[in-house]
């Protein structure tokens, strides 16, 4: 049994991820799926390349899930994130939460994806239709003030 967060270099198996959260005491399940979109900030995106500093990202993600469970009182939560090259339409990140009732499941799910996006050392490089590429959040922040480190990336 893996921890509540995994990285994967192959397509995510949503049924298995979801099945692991099943619990007779739970009446609500909420999930979020982040997909690769074909555009970002006016550019046509062809491919996303993800990389991560895995040991730290896994630890931090486990802390996020534990925080969500403690804060929202949900039963189970899990998250999976892809690494490597992803084409438009592919599933990049999956978050699932099961709880006694729907409200805390929705809230915990929202909390987890927001925290994942701005706390985990994960990076993505957009490859554009024209052949250019760029690291999201890194290429246009020459001056310190222009960048807001706590804002989740605009993508997905």
């Amino acid at each position, binding site marked *: 049994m893996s921890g509540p967060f995994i990285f994967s270099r192959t397509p995510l198996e949503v049924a298995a991820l979801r099945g692991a959260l099943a619990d007779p005491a739970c009446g609500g399940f909420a999930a979020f799926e982040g997909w690769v979109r074909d555009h970002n900030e006016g550019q046509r995106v062809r491919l996303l390349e993800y990389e991560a500093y895995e040991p*730290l990202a896994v630890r931090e993600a486990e802390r996020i899930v534990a925080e969500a469970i403690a804060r929202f009182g949900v039963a189970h939560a899990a998250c999976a994130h892809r690494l490597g090259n992803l084409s438009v339409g592919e599933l990049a*990140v999956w978050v699932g939460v099961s709880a006694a009732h729907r409200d805390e499941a929705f809230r915990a799910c929202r909390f987890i994806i927001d925290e994942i*996006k701005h706390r985990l050392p*994960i990076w993505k490089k957009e490859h554009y239709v024209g052949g250019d590429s760029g*690291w999201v959040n*890194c290429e246009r*922040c*020459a*001056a310190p003030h222009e960048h807001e480190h706590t804002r989740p990336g605009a993508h997905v």
Partner: protein
Amino acid sequence: MSAPLYGLVLAGGRSTRMGSDKAALRIGARTQLEQAMALLAPRVARAFVSVRADQRTDPLRGRFEQIQDTREDLGPIAGILAAQERHPASAWLVLACDLPLLDAATLDCLLRERAPERLATAFRSSLDGLPEPLCAVYEPASGAALAAYLASGRNCPRKFLSQADVKLIAEPNPRALDNANTPEEYASAMSALGEAPATTRRVTVQYFALLREQAGRSSEALVTSARTPRELYGELAARYPFSLDAALLRVAINSEFGDWSAPLKDGDAVVFIPPVAGG
């Protein structure tokens, strides 16, 4: 009438035994290359740094006039010859960049004793009595002799000087020409300078995303005199064309988020974290 004197700091080595770029190692507030240039420049008409082709855009070396090696993998003799070919009418005061204990008095002694009618003027090593080729003056006439020596398949500048018409002089400071090729030699030199003996530490640095591309590598082991992650990033930013200001990054030490001002310890694994974009 002696030829005009130009200066050359040899900084084209691969620093294999040191494990990190010797030119970028610190002596007090300066790098070794800056220190060597600061000693050299006031004593010569023009001062250059000798570089390999792939070091031309290195920011540390880019601040000085450069002479690029024209022959690969021949060691310091390639740098000396490239300089002589570029400016054949000049004499060259040649310095290695890894002489942390070199002092002004030693250079002034060399220049005072310079014999322009000989091929070169060099110190006799206090260790083995052989000429020290990398703190020496090479007169214009030595260029042809050095090229012929190289053409005969040899490339050891020390042996060249021991067979050539060279004026050898005694070192005024017996440790001035101790070169530092390994972390241990560097630490020994630092302690001789009165800097705390443990001023260097071995760390590994992993690079991700934009920093990986700009560093041209995903990790490296290095010996650094940086005391904190902030100083280490400054040292690396002098070597690589990093576009991200430290204020945009976070730092991780040994797989946990860390503090920019926390003391670095021997064996630390450091990661500089560019702005993240998960999801």
